């Protein structure tokens, strides 16, 4: 099939899906949902083919297709180059899983949902996927903005689609408002360019931007960065994220966390390396350092806040903040190193490769984890992990897949999370060697923070997995859980397979990264730089002379690991076949019960105390004593941590604004004399001004 037909076909699939599920609204809801998800899956497959066609097609290929004229003042068009295709690929990969997962999930979660609502699900899902896909394929500012807002709107609908309590509506409101603020910044950034260019399409913008004076260009970049950062949930613009993502249905959460944030990353890369890139010479240094700093902050704070969450999906949402931070570290490093020296541009390629690879990796394992959380949710209807436990014996496949995702996101070998973090470390090391002076130190510090992040993530997921799936069930919800339906398992298995493949044989993925990296940075693509020694070996040459490079082969490590495991297994069986019997866990002689299990709160407590300065933890313990104060009947414990940005910036601002407007409204007059007075006053003042100015 010709790649040229791809976009149209994709639009047809998504649009058709949206419309058909809308038309089926009056009829059976299940049919609407089914049709919607099938169409979404088809659209994702088309997107997959399209992106692969571009990525593996002849290098430097860009598909440009005009859109029939809609607005008299702008020519709309699509343009799909390497970068667009890569993000389209990521979107499609997760979208397939979500589309497979969705129907069974929705049915299991709320079987009694009204047809209208189910149809809305199908409609919004297709709209969401379509808009995301076409944001990446947009060839001009207006298409970009329209799809961008469409994406926000569709995800908003999905977030509030389940409005059993007001909580989701509030989360949706916060999300929508912050997204709108971000869009406002984007508007200014884009219009600042389009008005100079006199046209909307990216080609014209590129041409204009290369002629911009540095201050203006930097201002435009930071406007755009602010807009995208809001969408990406970068700290301190993240407050909407941990509320909105959990509120959505889980497969939508997977899409939002795994993919939608990446669209923002796409925007940042598009602006920094493509639209605003100067004709020659490096980018303004302020850009890269800012992005690096912001990325590091988000990574550390994100995982720290994630550690203290007990709501499974909220925890995952905070981890998205962390991973976006890691991606931004790579991107920022690439901005710093780009076009610095001969070899640094190769180094920049390494950094960008790390960022892009982590984009795909995060999409895979975060999608997997959210789907796993969804399976737990739809079987137990509980999101608070304190009320779960012991699920590994009841939902073994789900548990195994979730564990795989946990290992991957904790950046542990031999899975994919480690690969991208390894590349990031290499790039950071290279940066430290190239950038002398304080800059180098900052880069090394970022490396240390990255290591800290990895360790904390491991701790966090030891907690998440252990408390949710291991030990004894703490409540009847968990007690009576059963394994998730096969279609949901299949969707998770698909993503898990991606995690393993990207982890064990990352060299092959580099082939896909060639197009975007060379499109953005010019020069050799990833596979030439990182997979120079064949697809099995990742190698990075750090010093100009080429000596002292680093090489690592995930494949061999994995093989070694498997072999040794086999040997150790034999060893464990023992010389003679020892019998195995089971006995209750040792609890100092008491009869064990679920109350002996370590809770999430307890597990995270040491770190809560270590980082108390960041958490401002609050705990209130009330003793319920009987007649004598020494006999304690019951102890109530309530503890919480505060999100500094939220309490210190957002809550305060919101409160002040509302108080201000309340007072203004209360002071306003209702008497007609005041009305007339205002009119008269306005006239007199205006006349005075005219008289004074034009004397």
């Amino acid at each position, binding site marked *: 099939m010709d790649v040229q037909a791809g976009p149209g076909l994709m639009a047809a699939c998504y649009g058709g899906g949206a419309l058909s599920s809308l038309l089926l609204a009056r009829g059976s809801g299940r049919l609407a949902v089914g049709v919607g998800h099938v169409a979404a899956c088809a659209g994702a497959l088309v997107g997959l083919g399209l992106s692969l066609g571009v990525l593996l097609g002849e290098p430097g290929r860009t598909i440009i297709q005009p859109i029939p004229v809609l607005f008299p003042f702008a020519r709309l068009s699509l343009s799909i180059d390497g970068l667009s295709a890569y993000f389209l690929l990521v979107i499609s990969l997760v979208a397939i899983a979500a589309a497979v997962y969705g129907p069974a999930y929705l049915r299991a979660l709320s079987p009694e949902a009204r047809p209208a609502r189910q149809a809305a699900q199908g409609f919004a899902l297709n709209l969401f996927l379509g808009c995301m896909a076409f944001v990446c394929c947009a060839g001009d500012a207006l298409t970009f903005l329209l799809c961008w807002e469409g994406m926000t709107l569709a995800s908003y609908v999905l977030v509030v689609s389940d409005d059993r309590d007001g909580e989701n509506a509030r989360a949706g409101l916060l999300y929508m408002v912050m997204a709108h603020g971000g869009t406002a910044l984007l508007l200014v950034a884009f219009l600042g360019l389009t008005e100079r260019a006199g046209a909307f399409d990216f080609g014209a913008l590129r041409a204009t931007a290369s002629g911009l004076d540095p201050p203006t260009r930097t201002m435009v970049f930071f406007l755009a960065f602010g807009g995208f950062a809001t969408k990406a949930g970068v700290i301190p613009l993240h407050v909407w994220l941990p509320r909105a993502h959990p509120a959505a249905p889980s497969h939508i959460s997977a899409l939002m966390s795994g993919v939608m944030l990446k669209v923002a990353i796409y925007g940042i890369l598009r602006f920094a390396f493509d639209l605003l890139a100067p004709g020659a010479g490096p980018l303004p240094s302020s850009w890269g350092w800012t992005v690096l700093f912001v990325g590091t902050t988000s990574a550390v704070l994100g995982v720290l806040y994630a550690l203290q969450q007990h709501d499974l999906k909220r925890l995952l949402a905070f981890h998205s903040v962390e991973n976006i931070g890691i991606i931004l570290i790579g991107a920022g490093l690439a901005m710093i190193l780009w076009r610095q020296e001969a070899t640094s541009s190769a180094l920049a390629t390494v950094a960008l490769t790390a960022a892009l690879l982590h984009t795909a990796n995060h999409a895979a394992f975060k999608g997997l984890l959210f789907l796993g959380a969804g399976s737990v949710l739809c079987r137990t209807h509980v999101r608070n992990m304190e009320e779960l436990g012991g699920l590994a014996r009841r939902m073994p496949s789900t548990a195994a897949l979730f564990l795989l995702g946990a290992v991957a996101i904790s950046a542990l070998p031999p899975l994919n999370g480690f690969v991208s973090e390894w590349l990031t470390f290499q790039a950071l090391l290279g940066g430290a060697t190239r950038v002398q002076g304080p800059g180098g130190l900052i880069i090394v510090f970022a490396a240390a923070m990255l290591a800290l992040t990895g360790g904390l993530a491991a701790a966090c997921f030891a907690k998440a997995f252990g408390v949710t799936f291991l030990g004894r069930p703490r409540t009847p919800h968990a007690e009576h859980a059963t394994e998730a339906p096969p279609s949901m398992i299949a969707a998770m298995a698909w993503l898990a397979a991606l995690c393993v493949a990207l982890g064990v044989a990352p060299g092959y993925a580099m082939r896909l990264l060639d197009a975007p990296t060379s499109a953005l940075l010019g020069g050799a693509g990833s596979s030439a730089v990182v997979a120079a020694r064949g697809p099995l070996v990742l190698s990075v040459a750090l010093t100009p002379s080429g000596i002292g490079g680093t090489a690592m082969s995930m494949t061999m490590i994995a093989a070694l690991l498997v072999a040794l495991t086999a040997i150790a297994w034999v060893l464990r069986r023992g010389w003679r076949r020892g019998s195995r019997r089971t006995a209750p866990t040792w609890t100092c002689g008491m009869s064990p019960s679920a109350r002996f299990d370590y809770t999430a709160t307890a597990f995270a407590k040491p770190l809560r105390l270590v980082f108390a300065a960041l958490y401002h933890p609050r705990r209130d313990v009330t003793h319920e004593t009987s007649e004598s104060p020494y006999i304690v009947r019951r102890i109530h414990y309530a503890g919480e941590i505060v999100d500094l940005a939220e309490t210190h910036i957002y809550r305060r601002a919101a409160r002040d604004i509302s108080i201000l407007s309340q007072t203004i*409204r*209360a002071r*306003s*007059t*209702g*008497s*007609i*004399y005041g009305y*007339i*007075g205002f*009119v*008269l006053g306005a*006239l*007199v003042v205006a*006349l*005075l001004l*005219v*008289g004074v100015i*034009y*004397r």
Partner: protein
Amino acid sequence: MSADTVQSIIDDLGALLLFTMILIVAAGQIYRAIYAVAAQSLLIAIAGGVLAAATGNVDLWVIAAITLVVKATLLPWVLHWVVQRMNVRREIEPVIPIAGTLALSVLIVVVSFQVSASLGPVRQAITGNALPVGIALTLTGVLVMATRKTALTQMVGLFASENGIFFTAMAVSQGMPLIIEIGVILDVILAALVMTIMVLRVRSTVDADIADLDRLRG
């Protein structure tokens, strides 16, 4: 009559109009205000007549006549009738003290002169002193509406400011096209009618003055 005489007559009338306006502002009783408006309209009718005689413009005669009939006779009579019909208190309760209102009206007069002074001598030839007087009348009329309670006083103020407009129209541009003038006057009559109806309606339902209702706010 020579143009200068006409000009001087108009100026004197303008001064008189300002005087009546001050009477309206200072009026402590509703009747006084109504009479002052009637007198004001009368003066305007005279001004129309003078201008008509000077320019021989037939339209102006008609306009003067209409003003005499409608504004100097009919509307004051209607107001008078309403006041008697709904036996409200005859005293005018000011929103802010009368002295303050007077001060404000002085300010307005100053502003209007300053504004028209900003036009410069050449352009003042077009407008003469009529413009500042007109502005002053119009704004002061509105000032009265803003600073006097009871709906009736507001209607009085409204008519006063309409007078200001008419005077300007005559003096500055020998009156607008006849049809327009008539239309305007018809509108004013209609408005007065509707307002009267509303006043009586409220008076009959809730025993309060419509202008004092201030439940709707914010």
